[in-house]
């Protein structure tokens, strides 16, 4: 069973401390965890630090290995990171883009086996029909799916996503989130995702961490985190949590505190 725990991580930019001993619970394979918090709370920074894009002080433990001690190349074998910006419309075909990720991974297995893995990942995301398209011909949502394929094709144990839904319309928000949930379970990954919208977290993930000004103010099962009290403390809003007719939870914000 995959086990992951990051932190306590601390980080300063100049004199300003942006992360104060931020730590995740022990997260298990097959679960999704949301990083929540208002703008500037440090949730993206924490994710970037876990990904190793920026260096922070503290351990990042995955199955007994300390990712913080690894080189960028070595780390990329276990952990895949998707930044917030969509993959740009580079002049390359979708298959080339996904293959690039495998080639860079260091555990490249030869052309034919690599093609097999690329095909498998495109098929599992339901985007096989885009395989031969050029990136420039795709919509933003489709490009986000290609970015996801780039991450998944390496079969990471740890998947880190920074606001994967922010540039997407409702249809692609659903498709991406659905694919994430399914692949997380199927591949037994630990998935850590920065989400802008607590309502999405409440419906889609297993556990959550709420950050404010670089500190964790609550973490645990998502239903215990997205509550009126914690929403008030973190975002400064009056919120109600309601159950829709299908039993799904909804967050409605009624005002500011």
């Amino acid at each position, binding site marked *: 069973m995959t086990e992951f725990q990051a932190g306590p991580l601390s980080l300063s930019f100049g004199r300003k401390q942006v992360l104060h001993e931020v730590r995740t619970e022990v997260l298990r394979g097959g679960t999704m965890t949301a990083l929540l918090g208002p703008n500037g709370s440090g949730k993206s920074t924490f994710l*970037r630090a876990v*990904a*190793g*894009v920026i260096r922070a002080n503290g351990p990042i433990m995955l199955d007994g290995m300390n990712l913080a001690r690894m*080189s*960028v*190349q070595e*780390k*990329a*074998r276990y952990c*895949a*990171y*998707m*930044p917030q*910006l969509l*993959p*740009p419309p*580079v*002049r*390359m*075909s979708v*298959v*080339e*883009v996904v293959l*690039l*990720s495998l*080639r*860079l*991974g*260091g555990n490249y297995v030869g052309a*034919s086996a690599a*093609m*097999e893995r690329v*095909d498998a990942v495109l*098929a599992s995301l339901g985007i*096989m029909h885009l*395989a*031969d398209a*050029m990136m420039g011909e795709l919509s933003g949502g489709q490009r986000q799916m290609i*970015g996801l394929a*780039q*991450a998944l094709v390496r079969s990471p144990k740890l998947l*880190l996503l920074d606001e994967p839904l922010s540039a997407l319309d409702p249809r692609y928000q659903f498709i991406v989130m659905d694919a994430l949930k399914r692949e997380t379970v199927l591949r037994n990954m630990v998935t850590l995702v920065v989400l802008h919208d607590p309502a999405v977290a409440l419906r889609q993930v297993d556990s959550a961490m709420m950050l404010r000004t670089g500190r964790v103010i609550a973490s645990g099962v998502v239903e215990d985190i997205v509550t009126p009290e914690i929403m008030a403390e973190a975002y400064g809003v009056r919120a109600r949590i309601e159950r829709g007719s299908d039993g799904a939870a909804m967050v409605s914000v009624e005002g500011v505190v």
Partner: protein
Amino acid sequence: MKERSNTESVQRALLCRRLLIIALLLSGLIAAVLWNLVCGASHLPLDLLLKALFSGPDDHLEGSAGVILWQLRLPMVLMSAVTGLSLGLAGAEMQTVLDNPLASPFTLGLSAASAFGASLAIILGLYIPGLPSEWSIAGNAFLFSIGSAFLLEMVVRLRGASAETVILFGIAMVFAFQAMVSMLQFVASEDSLQDLVFWTMGSVTRADWTKLTLLSSVFSAVMIWSFRDSLPLTALRFGDDRAAGLGVDVRRVRLAALIRISLLAALAVAFSGTIGFVGLVAPHIARRLVGEDHRLYLPAAALSGGIILCLACLAARTLVPGEVLPVGIMTALVGVPFFLGIVLRREKTE
């Protein structure tokens, strides 16, 4: 399973087409070189040319043909080919690492900085004893070009500058270094002034075998080095963060690329002066032809640069009979409209 084999064959066909394009570019470059050798003040028929070519430089049986070919035309034409190759490769890497379609050694001031470094070496007579003077001039040009490359990179990194800011910063460097070159020209002696004017125009007429050997060896080494980095460079096209997430040591790759770019820009300028726009135009042609997988894109950009400069050289030698125009004037005439085209297209998409 059917879908799978289909994708694989589509990919293979795509790769074959792109390799074919590179082969065509290579033949295009060879053809452009031969065309240059045939044309000139005295016409060399192709059969005579080939005979002189294969009989080697020391065989003067062919009379003046051998001398014209080996002493005059061949060094000049090969110099324009290798300079074009170098500028094309430098421009391609620069557009990738600065993530800017308007980047090239010329537009962002690396060429101007190299020209200043080279001028300084000539004026002050900074020669390393025991080495040919070309080496000291080229070395000094390199110091200034790598200095300006790192200044640019710092602006991009520390200020998180937009593409436009980087271009404006580059233009400011061009102005600054040009002013300093003018100042050197003002105080220079009659003799060195001749040499200095040459830098500002860009010309391959001073080519000789020493310079050619030096530039070709550096170009070959840099081409191999950048080819080894072609995968991480391709990943950089997806942005720094995504590249780092894919396991690319972004800082190392960028640093190596800046050193390579500075080497190529400095040597090209030290031997042929500032030749503009080749490094800007060639990468755009290469992207259209073979896409952005840098294993194909880098060679294609280099070859396109070589072809452009060879054709410009041909035009410079034949447009006005009996005169050899500076080739930099030719490339600017073609390059400026192209530059404007990119700027206007960017405005439209924003």
